[in-house]
């Protein structure tokens, strides 16, 4: 490109040269004809001709490309001058890269989540049908009952077409043994056609497939491109293959295009199945407007039809056999809120709603960080400009216009900004991926399409130009104001008034204060997370593994389940390397939730509060030693307890404290009242249970159920699993149970899985260490720690660069004074002190202000902390120390350069 350009301009220049030479020759020839001598003719002709070079230049200018050539020259000059000042250039570029990178990363998330339309046909005409909640139109449920969907489907006059989908979550696609989970959603027959998503292999759903039991092809499934690659290796014959979903054979009929990730932003899918809904399922409806129809008119039509829809839905419910009492109860609140058709180009997603505010808040924060970065770079550029004033005034004296000088500074700023933005863009790609990974959990995975989008590129370009203008404008204006006579003045001493508290200093104070707040926040959150992550729960989180088993397919009758559990447990215990195998129903320290209303002795229980429990668990002997809850009084369960022996229970300390109030719990009798809520798979208590006798008191530890680590240990009652017999206890052992075991390595775990499969191949099995369950409770703490650390480090780096810039500027300005001091015999230490004095005061003020602000703000986050006071002095002191260290490190480099100033050169230049 450049070569072509040069070629083109050179040819034009040569032609112009030839033309002018020809003119000169003809003029000389004419003069000779008129009788002058050749020498006289040549001299006279040339004189008359004028300044050839000047003529050439002006003629070239006429072609109008002069501005481009000047721009290119400006860029080359800027590039060269940056190369000669590497430290300054690197500091500025690094600052901009961090600022623009962080902002772009968060904008990428905002874009993928909230701005980017679904990869479907004509997303602008999609609307979602939602019901306004009682809290007002701002709270809209994303889901409507499936029975309402059926009514809307049967009214084609409302929209051009409508479809429904429902996230099913994870389905088990393994036909035996350990479960193989696939993310899935269910969709109505016309879902893919309505959205305009086609299959790259096979076909998508049709309305014929949307029937209970399947359509003409039987139960069918459509898989995603990613799943096709992952599970089937991209095999071309995948169409027609059978896929076992929850042990039912589905036929794969199609594979969707790679860019389609499902109807909800924030989730991806592996398998799509038809929406064979029960009327209790809820779906999200996406409808396509007719050409010319607006969302408002669709809403009006919906609301006009709403009473009929409601009546028809209630009638359909009655027809399906729902008891009249239930229907009457429901009709009070069913579909009371007005329906609305809201634009849904970005889809309808509950994750969108919950992430929207935090994301926008983070974007504001990132923009603030970017502003600070710009202020920093402005400082740096100003410092450089102060050093170049001499050069600028010489150029002015030589005839450069003010505009020219200003343009030069702006071009340099733009160059810095572009390089910084390019680096920042690369950094943003990985940073956004890291953020998504951090926010994603096993239970609630977050998936975002982070591929390049024009919006992100436009944002980066705008940030580049915006930042260049922000930090380049003031230096450019200052450069333009330089007087040519300054070059002649002595020493370029600069302005006489050196304000102590100028704009620069205030900027540094602001940055340091801001950094203190963020560092304190980071300290608090990181320490909270560390405490929770390393808290002693009584057992080794990694080594203790829970193997979850479901006997549904093995069809074990309820009465023989306890014996069956015992067989499996013995098989596990027999594996070398696995010890402490114990059967249990609920996983401790997880969100498993089995509570009941308890009566101690003959007393009336306190009013039942689902939050207070007590929580129940049915365990086998050895549970208390495996899960770190030593028996403090009485005994644990052992071989004595089984069918026929007296019903026993063990309680933990919290239970004893809350429900038994100080007396020794051993010997007390417990009964479970029927009016409590029971929520455990298969366990039902139709009436009061027979009394259980408490035989032991266990220590409070992580072995309690429904224990979220942050809150106190909940009161827990443990039963013996061998005694769970519907004939005796009124509690039915559920088909799903678990075995807790301590393993020494991953291979031991595999052997355990193999041993279980040998006993009963039809068991569905998952093995997961306790840390997996506990981590689920800590997701938001971890996220807070990660984010605050990232932002805190960012702010620290920026503050460091800012202090560096200000100190360098001060040194440049005070160069003559320092040179004289050195000449008069000041030691390096004295010079250091002189230079750093100013900055230390500024930083100290910044730390003080930041400390006060965080002191005041910290009570807002008190609820999020654990094991720490919000005004934890160690954290505050740590933050102050970190800031001081960073400030000293940042100011040290220019200060050291100040000690190296050569007094002779300073004196000479005066």
């Amino acid at each position: 490109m450049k070569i072509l350009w040069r070629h083109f301009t050179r040819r034009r220049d040569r032609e112009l040269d030839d033309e002018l030479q020809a003119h000169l020759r003809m003029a000389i020839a004419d003069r000779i004809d008129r009788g002058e001598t050749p020498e006289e003719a040549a001299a006279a002709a040339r004189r008359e001709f004028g300044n050839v070079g000047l003529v050439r230049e002006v003629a070239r200018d006429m072609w109008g490309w002069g501005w481009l050539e000047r721009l290119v020259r400006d860029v080359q000059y800027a590039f060269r001058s940056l190369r000669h000042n590497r430290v300054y250039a690197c500091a500025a570029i690094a600052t901009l890269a961090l600022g623009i990178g962080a902002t772009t990363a968060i904008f990428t998330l905002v874009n993928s989540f909230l701005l980017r339309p679904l990869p479907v046909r004509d997303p602008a005409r999609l609307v979602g049908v939602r019901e306004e909640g009682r809290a007002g139109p701002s709270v809209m449920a994303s889901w409507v009952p499936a029975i309402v969907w059926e009514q809307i489907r049967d009214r084609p006059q409302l929209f051009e077409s409508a479809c429904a989908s429902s996230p099913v979550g994870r389905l088990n696609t393994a036909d035996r043994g350990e479960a193989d989970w696939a993310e899935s959603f269910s969709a109505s027959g016309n879902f893919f056609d309505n959205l305009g998503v086609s299959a790259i292999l096979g076909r998508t759903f049709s309305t014929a497939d949307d029937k209970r039991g399947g359509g003409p092809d039987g139960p069918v499934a459509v898989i995603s491109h990613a799943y096709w690659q992952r599970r089937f290796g991209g095999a071309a014959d995948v169409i027609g293959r059978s896929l076992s979903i929850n042990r039912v054979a589905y036929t794969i009929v199609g594979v969707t295009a790679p860019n389609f990730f499902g109807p909800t932003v924030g989730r991806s899918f592996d398998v799509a199945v038809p929406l064979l809904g029960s009327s209790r399922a809820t779906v999200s409806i996406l409808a396509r407007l007719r050409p010319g129809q607006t969302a408002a008119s669709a809403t009006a039509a919906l609301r006009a039809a709403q009473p009929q829809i409601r009546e028809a839905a209630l009638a359909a419910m009655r027809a399906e056999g729902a008891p009249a009492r239930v229907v009457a109860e429901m009709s009070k609140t069913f579909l009371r809120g007005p329906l609305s058709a809201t634009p849904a180009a970005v889809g309808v997603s509950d994750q969108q709603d919950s992430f929207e505010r935090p994301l926008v808040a983070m974007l504001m924060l990132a923009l603030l960080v970017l502003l600070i970065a710009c202020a920093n770079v402005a400082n740096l550029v100003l410092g450089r400009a102060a050093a170049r004033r001499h050069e600028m005034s010489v150029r002015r004296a030589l005839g450069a216009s003010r505009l020219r000088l200003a343009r030069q500074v702006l071009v340099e700023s733009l160059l810095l900004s572009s390089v910084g933005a390019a680096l920042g863009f690369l950094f943003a790609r990985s940073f956004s991926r890291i953020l998504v990974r951090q926010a994603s959990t096993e239970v609630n995975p977050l998936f975002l399409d982070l591929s390049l989008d024009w919006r992100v590129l436009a944002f980066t370009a705008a940030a580049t130009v915006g930042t260049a203008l922000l930090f380049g404008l003031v230096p450019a204006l200052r450069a333009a104001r330089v007087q040519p006579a300054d070059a002649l003045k002595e020493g370029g001493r600069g302005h006489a008034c050196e304000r102590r508290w100028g704009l620069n200093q205030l900027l540094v104070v602001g940055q340091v204060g801001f950094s203190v707040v963020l560092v304190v926040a980071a300290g608090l959150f990181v320490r909270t997370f560390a405490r929770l992550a390393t808290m002693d729960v009584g057992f080794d989180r990694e080594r203790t593994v829970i193997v979850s088993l479901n006997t549904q397919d093995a069809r074990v009758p309820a009465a023989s389940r306890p014996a069956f559990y015992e067989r499996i447990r013995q098989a596990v215990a027999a594996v070398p390397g696995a010890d402490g195998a114990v059967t249990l129903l609920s996983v401790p320290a997880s969100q498993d939730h089995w509570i009941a209303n308890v009566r101690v002795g003959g007393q009336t229980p306190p009013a039942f509060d689902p939050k207070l429990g007590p929580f129940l668990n049915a365990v086998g002997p050895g549970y208390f030693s495996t899960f770190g809850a030593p028996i403090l009084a009485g005994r644990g369960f052992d071989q004595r307890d089984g069918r026929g022996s007296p019903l026993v229970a063990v309680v933990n300390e919290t239970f004893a404290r809350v429900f038994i109030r100080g007396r020794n719990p051993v010997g007390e009798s417990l009964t479970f009242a029927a009016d409590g809520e029971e929520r455990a798979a298969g366990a039902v208590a139709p009436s009061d249970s027979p009394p259980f006798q408490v035989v032991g008191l266990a220590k409070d530890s992580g072995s309690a159920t429904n224990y979220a680590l942050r809150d106190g240990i909940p009161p827990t009652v443990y039963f013996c699993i061998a005694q769970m017999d519907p004939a005796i206890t009124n509690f039915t052992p559920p088909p799903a149970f678990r075995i807790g075991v301590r393993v020494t390595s991953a291979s031991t775990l595999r052997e355990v899985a193999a041993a279980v499969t040998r006993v009963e191949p039809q068991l569905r099995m998952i093995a997961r260490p306790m840390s997996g369950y506990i981590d689920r409770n800590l997701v938001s703490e971890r996220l807070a720690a990660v984010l605050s650390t990232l932002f805190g480090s960012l702010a620290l780096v920026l503050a460091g660069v800012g202090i560096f810039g200000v100190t360098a500027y001060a040194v440049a300005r005070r160069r003559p004074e320092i040179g004289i001091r050195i000449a008069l015999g000041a030691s390096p230490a004295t010079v250091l002190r002189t230079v750093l004095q100013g900055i230390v005061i500024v930083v100290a003020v910044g730390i003080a202000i930041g400390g006060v602000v965080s002191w005041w703000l910290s009570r807002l986050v008190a609820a999020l902390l654990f094991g720490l006071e919000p005004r934890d002095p160690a954290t505050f002191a740590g933050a102050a120390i970190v800031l001081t260290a960073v400030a000293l490190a940042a100011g040290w480099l220019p200060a050291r350069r100040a000690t190296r100033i050569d007094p002779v050169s300073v004196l000479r230049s005066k």
Partner: protein
Amino acid sequence: MAKKDRYQNRVELLQGTLDLLILQTLQWGPRHGYGITQAIKTRSADALQVDTGSLYPALHRLERAGVIAAEWSTSANNQQVRVYRLTPAGKRQLLAERSRWEQLSAAIAGVLAPDAIEEG
């Protein structure tokens, strides 16, 4: 150091009249740059001598505007010269400029007319 002073002709021409002179000269036939200066000099009886500092910038400006077109050709003395000629757009512009010039000179003549001078 004003830029505008650079191209002062020996006789001050009102702005835009140089373009008019060039276009009119080319009306009489295609010429190269030197030929244009000679023609203007001759026609004005040596009163107007356009120097190259004004001529070539003006020629290139007019060429860029599409009013005149240029090409290389060989002259009588076997020299390579760049010859300019008027384009149809140039002819239109020439007519427009001529009428403007005539209006302007009539206006000035009106102001300078003898009976407008009041004799004290």
